[in-house]
């Protein structure tokens, strides 16, 4: 991570941020120290009064000079202490909140990547390719069909002899009917996509055909018209299938405004939202850049861009890719699929996370979190009424134009309020091409600089406290200098009193001077010491609080990631090919299912293996068969995750289970298994089998934990720190620092950390291998389908 330090950071006068108690303290202590100076002058005068000896006078004057110098030094020190304190606080918050901004944007970056993969996967759905292919073929042939039909009708109109007894129709009626039917031929797309018009057309043509049947010689017309109607019905069926599939996808991804499928000319042929369908199908959207780009997208490419939808409040993020023939992935483009995501609604909770809240649990006034693009346009924000998506962010260029992995913070005025702005650009490692988005966290200056009214304290003596690694070096140096100054003043005073006593009666006048110097010096230095201790406690309190946030972020992120990823299983479990495979006899090869699972696994390498299991737990197919030596005999019937999935209801989400089994993979002691029952789509019967996969959380967890490590002001992980996940048996699942916390070993923590309540955080000190650490622990909010995942996140860093 690069630290981009703006000029503001170095030039800001931190004295302007001083709190009122600090300001009063500063004035008082400076007044006290200044009060010693007249006493020194008095001492110098007394020296002249009590002795005519120049050496004696010089000795006294030298002592007074030393005191004056020390007081001036102390006075300057006091001013510096405050400046340094506020500067350090700014730096510390800079590192902390830039981390928060970075975590958010990287998480969203990862979501973009995942969603891009999802969209590419949806594009591979055979139903969509079949629909696009069929409609294209139909549209192409319909013109000729209509021409031929028109010729048939013309023949009918001229040659059909009306049986006189069978009908009251006249030749004029026939001509009218022919004309009415022919009028539909110019509305090809409407006939293909508008079910009402198609029904009306079918009714008109069927009535006419019924009449024609009463006469002779019209078999050709009747046959052709029936074929035409059947062709149009075929269109209807394909469109319905495609729309149903899109609706199914949208049911698993509720943040999608809509999903639109077009053919290769930009004609909309299916969408996911029924209420928008009538106005959307058969429309050409080639002019929309998202469609144009999707049609040009290469195989394995997803285009991401923003679009404004007329009937939606927020701009959408559109994920677009081309649809190709399922049998020829590198072949010609058949059409496009475009998923319109309500990113503002989806990301708003994430943006609101980890911002301080008031008594009503609402984000505190003046705190904002939002993303901007390279032009500084807001993409989404935690408070859309104040920072509107689509508007300009009004931030300095140094905040808007960061490059991948860069961050910066500065003092600025935002929405009319003195604030600190912390910005971080996505690392760019996660997305296809990288979003390049910048995440900003804005905090009121008063909130950043305000010291906690009741800071949390650790059980530490002042000396240990001042040796703590959490206290800025500058405070430690000041504390040490202060001790030296206090000692120096004391020694000067004691030597002065000694000198006065050696002068006998003559020295009596000097004693009160040195007494006063001792008293004032002691009082000033003691108060300064208390101030430094108070500041150190405030630093520790801030550290504890931010470390708790880091732990909470870590556990929330992994839970969110697991929940998100498990949702995809729901969709895959509805694939017809898997259902068909479960109906096969054991000895029949499950080639199609294996190919499908392998294809999913290739696209989603975060899963280690996919298994399709029969009702008795036997493996029907898997994506990585070479990982098993005994695939044919292995049985999951006694596995908890298998039983849970088999017992689940039709609409249950995938079951997530942390299984301490080696069933799925031999490499790890623990596995996170997602399992979803596969059912017959039409009958609410018991499950046909189970689709299960082992989620490779190691790479996800490792990335999350590294992002949540405490950072130095330069953005590097704090030396000696570690972040790790534990399960309910205190087994380490993932760790950033195996030197301190080893994976797959039990790591014993104090009870209050190990038993931290759900959605709560706790922090304190912790002794491990003779080293003292501060530790923050957190557990995520309870979630129904995550009940099998009882993880806690912990962040430690050395204290002394």
């Amino acid at each position, binding site marked *: 991570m690069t630290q981009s330090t703006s000029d503001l950071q170095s030039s800001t006068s931190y004295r302007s941020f001083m709190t009122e108690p600090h300001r009063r303290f500063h004035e008082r202590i400076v007044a006290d120290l200044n009060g010693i100076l007249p006493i020194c002058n008095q001492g110098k005068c007394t020296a002249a009064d009590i002795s005519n000896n120049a050496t004696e006078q010089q000795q006294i004057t030298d002592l007074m000079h030393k005191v004056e110098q020390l007081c001036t030094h102390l006075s300057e020190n006091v001013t510096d202490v405050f400046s340094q304190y506020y500067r350090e606080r700014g730096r510390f918050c800079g590192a902390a909140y830039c981390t928060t901004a970075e975590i958010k944007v990287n998480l969203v970056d990862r979501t973009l990547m995942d969603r891009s993969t999802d969209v590419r996967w949806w594009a591979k759905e055979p139903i969509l390719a079949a629909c696009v292919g069929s409609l294209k073929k139909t549209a192409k042939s319909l013109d000729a069909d209509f021409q031929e039909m028109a010729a048939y009708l013309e023949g009918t109109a001229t040659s059909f002899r009306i049986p006189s007894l069978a009908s009251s129709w006249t030749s004029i009626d026939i001509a009218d009917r022919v004309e009415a039917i022919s009028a539909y031929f110019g509305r090809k797309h409407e006939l293909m996509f508008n079910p009402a018009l198609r029904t009306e057309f079918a009714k008109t043509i069927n009535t006419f055909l019924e009449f024609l049947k009463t006469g002779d010689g019209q078999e050709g017309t009747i046959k052709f018209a029936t074929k035409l109607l059947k062709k149009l019905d075929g269109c209807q069926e394909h469109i319905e299938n495609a729309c149903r599939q899109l609706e199914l996808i949208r049911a698993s991804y509720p943040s999608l405004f809509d999903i639109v499928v077009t053919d290769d000319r930009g004609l909309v042929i299916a969408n996911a939202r029924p209420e928008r369908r009538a106005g959307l199908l058969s429309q050409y959207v080639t002019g929309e850049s998202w469609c144009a780009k999707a049609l040009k997208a290469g195989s394995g490419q997803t285009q991401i861009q923003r679009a404004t939808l007329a009937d939606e409040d927020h701009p959408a993020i559109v994920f677009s890719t081309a649809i190709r023939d399922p049998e020829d992935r590198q072949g010609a483009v058949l059409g496009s699929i475009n998923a319109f995501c309500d990113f503002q609604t989806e990301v708003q909770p994430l943006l609101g996370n980890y911002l301080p809240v008031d008594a009503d649990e609402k984000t505190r006034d003046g705190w904002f979190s939002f993303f901007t693009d390279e032009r500084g346009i807001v993409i989404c924000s935690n408070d859309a009424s104040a920072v509107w998506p689509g508007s300009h962010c009004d931030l300095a260029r140094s905040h808007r134009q960061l490059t991948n992995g860069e961050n910066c913070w500065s003092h600025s005025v935002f929405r009319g309020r003195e604030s600190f702005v912390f910005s971080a650009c996505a690392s760019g490692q996660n997305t296809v091409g990288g979003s390049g988005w910048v995440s900003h966290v804005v905090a009121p200056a008063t909130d950043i600089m305000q010291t906690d009214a009741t800071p949390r304290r650790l059980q530490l*003596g002042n*000396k240990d406290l001042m040796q703590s690694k959490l206290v800025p070096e500058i405070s430690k140096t000041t504390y040490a200098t202060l*001790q030296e100054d206090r*000692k*120096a003043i*004391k*020694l000067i005073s*004691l*030597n002065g*009193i*000694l000198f*006065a*006593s*050696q002068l*006998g*009666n003559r*020295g*009596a006048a000097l*004693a009160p001077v040195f007494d006063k110097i*001792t008293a004032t010096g002691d009082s000033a230095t003691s108060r300064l010491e208390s101030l430094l201790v108070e500041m150190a406690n405030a630093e520790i309190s801030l550290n504890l609080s931010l470390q708790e946030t880091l732990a909470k972020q870590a556990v929330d992120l992994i839970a969110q990631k697991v929940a998100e990823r498990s949702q995809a299983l729901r969709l895959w479990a509805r694939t017809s090919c898997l259902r068909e495979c479960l109906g096969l006899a054991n000895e029949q090869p499950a080639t199609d299912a294996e190919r499908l699972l392998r294809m999913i696994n290739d696209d989603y390498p975060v899963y280690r293996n996919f298994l399709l299991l029969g009702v008795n737990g036997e493996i029907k197919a898997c994506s990585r068969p070479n990982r098993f030596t005994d695939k044919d005999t292995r049985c999951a019937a006694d596995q908890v995750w298998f039983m849970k999935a088999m017992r689940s209801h039709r609409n249950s989400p995938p079951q997530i289970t942390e299984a301490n089994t080696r069933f799925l993979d031999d490499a790890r002691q623990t596995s996170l298994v997602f399992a979803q029952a596969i059912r017959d789509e039409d009958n609410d019967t018991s499950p046909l089998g189970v689709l299960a996969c082992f989620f490779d959380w190691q790479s996800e967890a490792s990335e999350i934990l590294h992002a949540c490590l405490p950072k130095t002001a330069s953005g590097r992980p704090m030396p000696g720190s570690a972040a790790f996940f534990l399960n309910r048996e205190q087994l380490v699942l993932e760790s950033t620092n195996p030197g301190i916390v080893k994976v797959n070993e039990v790591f014993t923590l104090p009870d209050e950390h190990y038993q931290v309540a759900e959605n709560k955080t706790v922090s304190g000190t912790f002794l491990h291998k003779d080293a003292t650490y501060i530790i923050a622990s957190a557990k995520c909010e309870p979630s129904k389908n995550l009940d099998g995942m009882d993880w806690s996140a912990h962040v430690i860093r050395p204290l002394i």
Partner: protein
Amino acid sequence: MANVTTQRLVSFWVGEQIYAVPLLLVGEFGPTIQITPVDAVDERIEGIAHLRETSAVVISMRKILKATGGGQHVEDDMIYIVPHDQLCDEAKKQNLSSFIEPIVLHVDRLANIINVNPNDMHPTPSHLVEPFYQGVFEIDGRDLILLDFSKLIDCLLTQLNENPR
């Protein structure tokens, strides 16, 4: 300046206890100074310090007084005791005596200079067995032990002679 009925003492901390010596024995108070260790002598003698062209023996008061604890507040202050021939008249008038050579007392922390009335001095309690404890004053609710400097040196010398290294 103290009148004839009072005595000025310099108090200092060693471990958890506060002690004092007469101020008139003191030539100077100083911060931590460089000490040259001397081998093969009693551990109570830390070494030799050079002070303004004079060498002085540095005595560890923690070792002499067998202090434990109180390490939190150690500032390593030094009290320079003038040689006997350089004592001021007032000191001689009060029958104070020091050693023939300058001595530096290495104490944990200097406390203060205080005036006491010799009549307020209590005898040393029986459990305090050191022969160089002269008496006890009660200052601000704490017991302050007045040390007899010459006896302290005698004691050190006697033991050195009895147990030469």
